[in-house]
């Protein structure tokens, strides 16, 4: 009874002494301990760095997802007619304005509809020409649909569309190609009111979108803007030119948005009806020659819709399908493309990256743990006599067990802390090695997890040596040379 309460008193009063003894033991073998810790340092830092890289990617992908309209956006695209309906091909109507009217009236789960006609065009102005990613004929509603923001001028309106006016809204990429980017010219050119020739047809620019970029690009740009001011202002022009020329395209999604030109849908239909692209992104659909479908209604490249909420996505799709099957005479020449697939792909990719990266980092932590165990085993076989002495003056089995475990833990904790510090350097190194658009994000969670794992590894690695040491027979240990 007395001994057990005494033992309890022990452990608390003893703990600081035990930790101090552990630190002293490690300090006595500085180089050896450092080498042992290196395993843990590398394991922890690679775990944190890996997680930071994946988090960066995840953030970039989510940003891009929002930039193209979020999960509520669904695209209806033309598709090959199923084989069992091939004989009805000449009756297929395609996606037309008629569908838009039908959906407006009969699909309450759809909150917004934006028909699109696409054309790959060449634009020229200011003595230069440029192939934008896409020329799109749209309704004014496309602005909200695709998360576009007008920075200068205005979006064309219903009247422009009704009158099929030759007006267009461009993105910064078109401006950069034709008039030069702010970095190149040193000032921002706003070509509102200028005339631009689209496939030879003159159009007036009425508006320009803001410049879309990922947060990472924005930071880089701001930094570049600040830098020359602080050191040599004279050098600015030359350096900026070099930078502008070799500039990376940035995230593809943002590039696409910047390199898109919008014109009114009606204008598109009036001016360019023969060239409109009728293939979905899936490809393979054979345009039935000319733009008119079986009904003669104007055919659309695709139809973008926004639904009320992601939760009702399946119901909304079913609703749309029902409406379209009736307008398309039961011929399934359309398909849905949801962002959900993409979001799922992102999530899958992130999960896989996290899993495989975590596995590799975990293995290196494990190797670090084996290193600790190895050194602890060597250490106790050097210190058999010490263990005998400690036992002879009254150390119980548990005291020796704790002592060895604490030593192993101290190595792991020190290694873990050093690893956390190192991880910042490693993240830096990795991002300079593999240029990714997405800056790695070091999260507190990943640091806590990595540190927690290093502690766990320390305990596991110390367990066997501690048991081995604690079980030593004091008499034999005292005789040991």
């Amino acid at each position, binding site marked *: 009874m007395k*001994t057990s309460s*005494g033992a309890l008193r022990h452990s608390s009063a003893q703990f600081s002494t035990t930790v101090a003894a552990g630190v002293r*033991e490690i300090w006595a073998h500085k180089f050896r301990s450092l080498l042992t810790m290196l395993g843990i340092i590398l394991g922890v830092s690679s775990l944190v760095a890996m997680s930071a890289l994946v988090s960066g990617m995840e953030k970039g992908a989510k940003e891009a997802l929002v930039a193209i309209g979020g999960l509520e956006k669904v695209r209806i695209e033309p598709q090959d007619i199923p084989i069992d309906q091939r004989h009805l091909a000449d009756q297929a109507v395609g996606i037309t304005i008629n569908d838009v009217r039908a959906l407006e009236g009969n699909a309450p789960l759809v909150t917004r509809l934006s028909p699109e006609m696409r054309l790959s065009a060449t634009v020229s102005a200011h003595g230069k020409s440029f192939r934008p990613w896409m020329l799109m004929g749209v309704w004014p509603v496309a602005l909200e649909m695709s998360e576009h923001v007008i920075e200068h001028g205005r979006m064309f309106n219903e009247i422009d569309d009704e009158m099929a006016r030759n007006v267009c809204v461009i993105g910064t990429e078109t401006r950069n190609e034709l008039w030069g980017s702010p970095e190149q010219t040193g000032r921002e050119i706003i070509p509102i009111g200028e005339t631009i020739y689209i496939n030879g047809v003159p159009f007036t620019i009425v508006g320009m979108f803001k410049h879309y970029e990922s947060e990472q690009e924005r930071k880089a740009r701001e930094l570049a803007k600040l830098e020359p001011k602080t050191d040599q202002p004279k050098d600015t022009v030359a350096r900026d030119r070099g930078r502008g020329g070799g500039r990376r395209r940035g995230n593809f999604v943002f590039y696409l948005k910047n390199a898109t030109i919008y014109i009114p849908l009606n204008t598109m239909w009036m001016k360019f009806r023969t060239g409109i692209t009728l293939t979905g992104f899936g490809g393979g659909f054979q345009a039935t020659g000319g733009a008119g479908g079986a009904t003669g209604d104007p055919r659309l490249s695709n139809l973008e819709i926004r639904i009320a909420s992601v939760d009702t996505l399946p119901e909304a799709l079913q609703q749309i399908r029902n409406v379209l099957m009736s307008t398309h005479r039961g011929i399934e020449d359309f398909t849905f493309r949801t962002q959900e697939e993409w979001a799922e792909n992102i999530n899958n990719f992130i999960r896989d990256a996290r899993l495989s990266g975590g596995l590799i980092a975990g293995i290196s932590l494990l190797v670090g743990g084996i290193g600790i165990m190895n050194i602890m085993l060597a250490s106790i076989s050097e210190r058999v006599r010490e263990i005998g*002495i400690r036992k002879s*003056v009254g*150390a119980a*089995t548990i005291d020796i067990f704790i002592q060895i475990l604490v030593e192993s833990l101290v190595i792991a904790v020190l290694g873990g802390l050093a690893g956390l510090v190192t991880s910042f350097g490693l993240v830096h190194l990795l991002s300079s090695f593999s240029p990714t658009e997405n800056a790695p994000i070091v999260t507190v969670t990943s640091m806590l997890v990595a540190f927690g794992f290093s502690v766990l590894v320390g305990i596991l690695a110390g367990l066997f040596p501690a048991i081995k040491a604690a079980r030593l027979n004091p008499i034999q240990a005292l005789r040991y040379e």
Partner: protein
Amino acid sequence: MALVELRNVSKIYRLGEEEIRALDDVTTDIAEGEFISIIGPSGSGKSTLMHILGCLDSPTKGTIRLDGVMIHGASSRQLAAIRNQKIGFVFQFFNLLPKLTVLQNVELPMIYSGVSGKERRDRSMAALESVGMANRAKHRPSQLSGGQQQRAAIARALVNSPKIVFADEPTGNLDSHTGEAILSLFRKLSTEGRTIVLVTHDPEIAAVTPRRIEIRDGRIAEKIDLTLAGLDRAAAPGGPAAGAEA
């Protein structure tokens, strides 16, 4: 009541088929305050006896009562606590921890009995004082002579005020002059009322204690070999000179 009561204690090792009786039916008492030596040639079983008396080992048969407590079927934890509180050891090779200072070495038993830092230091300094080593408290064992190391080891053995101190060949690794000084330190401690057991193969050393137990082949020898023990010369310290257990 004697401090230590040993009743029919045997320690039997098995080496394959062979049975080795390291101790064979030993019965003896040690009274409080006694200064006693256990003598015998190497392999006689005297070390085994000391280990059993010192709770480092448990007997195969028989009972030991230490300070009124039966040491029988005690767990290794209880044995550790008894070693810590009631027993001090002094070894031939000093057995100080080389990485610790003298003071830290002396503090060691108190760490395992949960004494607070300040009290630990005070008691350790007092113990070092009593063996004349207070001025070396901050030294490492490697910086000390053999005799000084042994004094530090004695301070460590005394620091928890044990009931009994075992010294296993305490002079075996010292020159005769230093050994002499260590023995007189034990004699002094004995006069202060400590119970001390010297374990040795050397009859000259055994001669300093008033009482001797001679072990031969695992048994307490009935008659002391006077020529071996050199008792004709050493009977002087007085008391019951003939150490035979009758």
